C-alpha cells in the first residue's frame, strides 16, 4: 500500500464528501417539545372516581383484550397495587383514606393508571426504529410491524408503563394505552375509558382546555383539591392530567422532576454526531497520523535497510547524500 500526499488528499476529499451527505438523515423532527394547540388529553379527577372499574372494562372491550379475571363485583382485586400488563392497558388502584378533605364519609380513594402520553415521550426518543411515535393529536402510538422487541421503551419510560408480551414466542408486542387511536380507520384519540366513566371523573378534550378546567376547579373548590395539576409539568408535561385532593405520593403517582431526559440524550447525540462532523474530523486526524507514521516508517525502514545493506556490503551507503 502506497500512500503519498497526492493519494491521501484524493482520499480525504472523497470521504469528506460522503460524510457531508450523511447529514441529511441525521436529524429527525423531534415531536412534542411544546404542546401543539390541537393536542388532546384527559383529566382524571381522583376525588370523583368511585372505583367501579368500568374504564377497565371499556378499555378491554375496545382493544379486544381478555376480560379481567375476577369480575367487577369482586373487590378483592384492590388488595394489591396493580400495574398495567400486556392484557390490561389500564388499571384502577385503591388507596385507603378519603379522596379530599371535604369528603369525610368516603373511605377509599381510587387512582387510574395508564400511559401518560407525555408531551416529550422518552419512549418515542428511545425507540430504535421509531415504532413508538407521537401522533398529530398527541397520542403516543405503537407500530408493531417495525418493532424489534428490544424493549428499550420499557427502560426509557419513567412511569413504567409499556408492558411486553413475554409469553408470546414469535410476535410479541409492546402493549400500552394508545388513547384508542384506530389505526385501521386512521382516526385519532377517542378514549373508551372516558366515555364509559359513569361519574365523569375522566374528562377528555384538548389539553389546553383541560388545564383551564382543572385550574377552574381548583380555584372554585380549594377545600377539595390540592393546588397542583399532576402531569402539567412532570417529565416536561403529560397529556393525562390528575386532580388530587391528597398528596400524589399517597395515590401511587411518582414524584418526578420536570426535566425531560431525552433532551440530554438527544443533546449528546446531536452534539457529537450532527452532520457527522466530529467523526469525520476525527477520521481525518487519524488518517493524518497514520500517514505520518507510515512516512516515518518508510523513512526509518529506508534508513534501516540502508544501514543493513551498508553493514552487509561494508561500503558507504548508496543513493543517499551524506
Amino acid at each position, binding site marked *: 500500500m502506497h500512500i503519498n500526499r497526492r493519494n491521501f488528499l484524493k482520499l480525504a476529499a472523497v470521504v469528506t464528501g460522503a460524510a457531508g451527505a450523511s447529514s441529511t438523515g441525521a436529524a429527525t423532527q423531534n415531536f412534542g417539545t411544546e404542546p401543539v394547540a390541537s393536542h388532546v388529553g384527559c383529566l382524571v379527577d381522583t376525588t370523583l372516581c368511585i372505583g367501579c372499574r368500568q374504564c377497565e372494562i371499556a378499555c378491554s372491550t375496545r382493544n379486544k383484550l381478555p376480560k379481567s379475571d375476577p369480575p367487577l363485583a369482586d373487590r378483592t382485586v384492590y388488595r394489591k397495587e396493580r400495574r398495567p400488563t400486556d392484557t390490561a392497558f389500564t388499571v384502577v388502584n385503591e388507596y385507603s383514606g378519603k379522596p379530599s378533605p371535604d369528603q369525610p364519609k368516603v373511605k377509599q380513594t381510587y387512582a387510574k393508571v395508564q400511559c401518560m402520553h407525555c408531551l416529550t415521550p*422518552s419512549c418515542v426518543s428511545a425507540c430504535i426504529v421509531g415504532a413508538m411515535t407521537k401522533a398529530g393529536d398527541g397520542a403516543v402510538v405503537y407500530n*408493531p410491524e417495525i418493532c424489534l422487541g428490544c424493549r428499550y421503551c420499557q427502560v426509557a419510560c419513567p412511569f413504567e408503563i409499556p408492558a411486553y408480551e413475554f409469553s408470546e414466542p414469535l410476535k410479541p408486542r409492546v402493549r400500552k394505552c394508545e388513547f384508542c387511536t384506530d389505526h385501521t380507520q386512521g382516526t385519532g384519540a377517542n378514549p373508551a375509558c372516558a366515555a364509559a366513566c359513569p361519574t365523569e371523573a375522566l374528562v377528555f378534550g384538548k389539553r389546553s382546555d383541560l388545564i383551564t378546567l382543572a385550574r377552574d376547579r381548583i380555584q372554585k373548590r380549594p377545600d377539595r383539591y390540592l393546588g397542583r395539576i399532576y402531569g402539567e409539568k412532570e417529565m416536561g408535561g403529560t397529556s393525562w392530567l390528575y386532580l388530587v385532593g391528597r398528596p400524589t405520593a399517597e395515590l401511587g403517582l411518582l414524584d418526578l422532576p420536570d426535566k425531560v431526559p431525552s433532551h440530554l440524550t438527544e443533546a449528546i447525540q446531536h452534539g457529537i454526531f450532527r452532520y457527522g462532523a466530529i467523526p469525520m474530523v476525527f477520521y481525518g486526524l487519524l488518517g493524518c497520523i497514520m500517514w505520518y507514521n507510515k512516512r516515518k516508517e518508510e523513512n526509518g525502514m529506508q534508513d534501516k535497510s540502508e544501514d543493513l545493506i551498508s553493514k552487509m556490503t561494508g561500503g558507504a551507503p548508496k543513493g543517499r547524500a551524506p
Partner: protein
Amino acid sequence: MIHPDPCRQKRPFFTFGTMVLFLFMGIGFAFGLSRLLLGLGAVTNLSDRSPWGIWIAVDVACGVALAAGGFTTAALVDIFGRKRYHSLLRPALLTAFLGYLWVAISLLFDLGRYWNIWRPVFHWQGNSVLFEVGMCVTFYLMVLSVELSPAILEGLRDRMDKGEWGAAILRWIERPLKMAYDAVRAILPLFICAGVVLSFMHQSSLGTLMLIASTKLSTLWQTPILPLLFLLSAIMVGFPMVILESIYASASLDRKPEMEVLGPLASRIPWFIGLYGLVKIADLIVRHNQLNFLSHPGSTVALVIEIVAGVLVPFILLQVPTVRQSRNWLLFSVLLVIFGVMLNRINVFLIGYHPAYMVKPYFPSVGEIALTVAIICSIVICYRFFVIYFPILPADGTNPEAGPDALRTASHPTLSPLLTWIFRGIAAAFLLFFVLLYAFVHKQAMTQSLKAYRDVQVVKARATFPAGNAATHEFRPAGYRNYYVLNSELLNSRSGYFEPVRFSHRTHDVNTGGDCSVCHHRVASDKNDRVGEDIKEMHLNIDVRLGGACSSCHDMTEKAPTACAQCHGLPNEADNPARIGLKGAYHRQCIGCHAAQPQGANAPTACNSCHHPLTPDHSKLVTLPSTASTRQVTERCLACHENVGQEILKTAHWNWKGMSPDITGHEHSVNVGLNNTVDNYYISMGSNIAQFSKFHIGSEVLGTNHEYSDPADIDCLVCHDSTGGHTRGGPAGGSLQVSVTNQTEMVGMLVGRPNRANCGGCHFYTGGGPNFEHGDLEPSLTKPGAELDVHMGMVDMRCQDCHQISRHQVAGLSFAAPALEGRVACEDCHGSTPHGITGFLSRHLDDHVRTLSCEACHIPQFAREYPTLMATDFSQAGKDLPASTNALGMPLYDRKFGVLAWGENVVPVYRWFDGTREIRMVGDKIQPTETVSLNAPLGERRNPLARIYPFKIHTAMLPYDAERKTLVAPRLWDGYWKDYDWTNAIVTGMKEMGLPFSGKVGFIKTEMYSALHHTVPPARQALGCTDCHAVEAVRCQRCHQKAEGMDQPTHTRMVYPETTNRMDFKALGYQDDPALIGGRFYMRLGRGRPPQ
C-alpha cells in the same frame, strides 16, 4: 526488527476442552431454542419491571466493551505505527470480530421480534441512542470483516497451495480470490480509520443509552459524561483483553506466552487506567451532592468494588515491572481490569437500575446464565477454529509451518496504481452510496410512518334520551312524568347487556318533601338556555327563603322545573366546559345522594341495582338433549351456577318452613311451616303433602320423611322459564308430571329472570284455584291493565322488584306461609311522606301514615276480576246436595269441600296489625265455643307500632278433635275423598303426622286472614275522606276558620258510595269517628287550633 509471521496452528480442533465447551454450548443453545419456541417469559426472568437482563448487560454491553481490543490494537499498530506489536494485531481483530458477531447472535435471542432485526437499516429514528449504537455496531462488524479478510484469504490460499481438503474447489476461484485479496489490501487503510472512529462512536453511545432512564438509574452512575466514561473504560480494557486472549491462547494451544510483547504492551495500560480513574473520580467528586450512597447499599458496594478492584488495584499492580513480566501476575492484573469493566457495565444496566415499582429484584434465570455461558464458549470455540485453520497467531518455534510467503512479505502491491485507486474509489463510492441510500430510505420510511397517524378525526357521539311513559297528574307541570324508562341509545350501543334504567320520579320527589331544586338545581330562562341560574341564588336575590315544597308557593302546572337533559348533554362541551354531561350528572347526583343516605335506606349505589343485567342467551352456552329430564336440566344449570344449589337448600321456598320471628310464641323457631299449620282451604297440608308437590320448587314428590337435601332435585325452570311452557302436574304414578314444550329450546334461549307468570304459576292458584285464597293475587296480574294494578300494569314491575331476592331468599311476610325472609313495605320506595305534591291535602294525608297502612286506603276492594273463596263449610261435605253455581259460575256446593261462598269486589275488613301475629298448628288446643282465628294479626290502637291494614277473612267449619279439643289434620286425597269418613281420614292423617287422635270428630268455626297488598288501583281510585269519615267531620272550616269558600268537593269526596260503614271505628277501639272527636293519641281534635 523482524517479527514472526502469522501462520496456522497445527493443533487438533477436538480436544477434551473443546468437548466441554461443546457441552456448555449444547445446554445453552437448548435454552436458546426454548426461548425461540416458547417465548422469553418461559426461559428468562425478564419482566415488565426488569426488561433488560444479563443478555443485554453481559452479552451485549460487556461483549462490545471487551471487544475493544480490536480497535485499540489496530490504532496502536496501524495508525500509530508501533509495529513491534504486529503479532498481536490479528488475534485482537479476530477476538473483536467474534465478540461482535456473537453480540449480534445473542441479540437474536434477546429481541422479541428478532426477525425484524434488519429494520433499523431502513427505519431510522435519529433521536434514538440505541439506533446509533445498532447502526455503528453493524457497520463496524462489516469493517472488522474487511480487516480480518486478509487472514481468511491467506488461509484459503495456503489451503489451496498445499492441496488440502477443498483445494480443488478453491482453485476454481483462485483469480477472484487473489483479486479480492489485493483489493482488500488496497482499501484497508480506509477501513482501519473507519473502525477506530466507529468504535469511539458506539462505545460512547452505549454509555448514553441508560441516561434516558434518568429517574431510574442510580445517582452513583448517572452522569452526563457517562458516554465519555464508557469510551475511556473501553479503551482501558482493550489491551488487557489482548493480553488475556494471548495468554489463554498460549495455554490452550500449548505455546509459549509472548511475554516479550505482552510486557511492554502492559506498560501502556496504566496510562489508560489512570485517565479513566481520574475522570471517574473527578466526576464523583463534582457530583458529590447528588450522590446517595444509602438508598441502595448493594449499589454502593458494587461501585466501591468496581473502583477499587477494577481501577485502583490494577493501576498500582501494572506499574510494577515484575508484575508485567510474570505471566501469572500479568494475567491476574488484566483480569482485574476486565472484571472491573464488566462490573461497571452490569452496574449501569442492572444493579444501578432501580425502577420505582419494582417488587422483586432481578436475578438471571438458569436459562439466561446458560445461554450467556454458551455464547462465551462459542467465542472460544470459534477462536480455536480460526487460529487452527487460518493464519492468525504468529509462528513460534514449535510451529514448523512458518515460512515466508510471497504474498505476505511483499512490500509493494501486486496491483497497478491505477487499479489500486479504482478499488479505493469503489470503496469510497460504496460508503457514499450507503449514506445516500440511508438518507433516501429513511426519509421515505419516516413519511410513511407518519402518514398513518397524521389524519385525526374525532368521533362525536350523539345521544338522545327519550322520556318514558306515565300519565300526568294534577298539580304537576305538563312535562312531569311519574315514571321514566331511561333507554339510552348510547348505552345500548356499547353493550346490549342491561335493561333500561327505571326511574320513579314520584318516589324521589316525595323524598325531597316536594322540593324540586334538590335535583333541578338550576332554572333556564328559555328552551335554548343551557346554562341557567342557580335556584337557591335566584331566590336569595329576591329575598325569598327556600325550604319546603315548591308547590307551596308556585302553581306547578305553570312553573315546570328545568329538565335534566335541557342543560346536560355531552360532557365537556365548548360553551361551558365545567358543565358535566348527562351521564355524569345522573350518576353523580344519584350515586352521590344515595351514598349519603342513612344505613338501611333503600338507596342503591351498586351498578346492577339500577342497570339490571339481561340474562344472556343460554342457547350459546348450554346444550341439552331434547329428552333431558328435569334432574338433568338442573344438573346442567348447577354445573355453572355452582353455589345456587346450596343457597336454595336454605330457603323457605325449598323447605316450606323457616324463621318466624313475627309469630308470637314461635319467635325463635325455625320449624313452623306449611307442614304443620292449619288452614281453611285444605285443613292441613302436612297430611296431604304429596299432593302439593307440584307447588314445591323441587321435582320430587314430597312425603312425610322427604329429604330436602339434594340440590339436583330443584326444578330451576319453575322460576326461570320465561316461555310459560313449563308446567307441572300430578303427582301421578309416584312422580310429578313435569312437561315442557321444546325443552332444550326453552332452556337454551329463554331462561331468564322470573316474571310474574313464574311466581303466579303457584301463588295465583293457592287455595285450590285462581285467586281462591289470597283475594289480591289474581291470575290476570300476569298481564294486568293499568286499572287493576299500577305497579304491575302501568309500570310493569316484577314481583321481585318489591319482594327483593337475596341469595334466592324472597322478602315478604305471608299470612299463609309462616317463614319470613325479609320484609317488604311500601315506604321502601314511597317513603313515609308519600303524598308529596298531591296538592293542598298532602299534609293531611301524610298525617294518616301513622295510623293507616298504605294498603288500607289504596286497596279499597279485592277480587276485582277473579272471584275469591270467602267461606267453606266442611261440615256439609260428603253429602249429596245439588252442585249449583252462583251468578259468577262458581259452585255453591262441592261434595269434597261442602258449602262454598264466593265474593267479588269485596270490601276488606280492617284490623290493627303491628307486624306480629298468631298461628294455629295441628294439635293446638282450642276453645270450641269461640271462633278460632288461625292466623290473626295482633295489634291495638294504643300500640304506636300498629297500623290499620285491610284483610280478607275466610270463614270455615273445620273438623277438630272433640275430646282432646285440638286441631286435627285429616287426610283428604286417598282419605276423606275416598270414603267420606272424617274419622278414618283424621286417623290416617294424624298417624302420618305422628300426633294423637281421640277418635271423636266435631266441627268448629274458624277464620283465616289473608293480607291484601296487591291489585293497587291508580291513586284517584283510592278511598276518599268520606268513605270512612263522617261527612260533617270533614270540613276545612272546622279548623281553618277563615277558610270559608275554600271548601272544594274534592276535599270531601266519597269514591265508593255503595259501601256504607266501611270503617267500623268502634271495632277498632275508637270512641267514635276520630275526625269528629279526636285522633288516635290526642284528646283534642287535630293538633289544636291554628293561631288567631
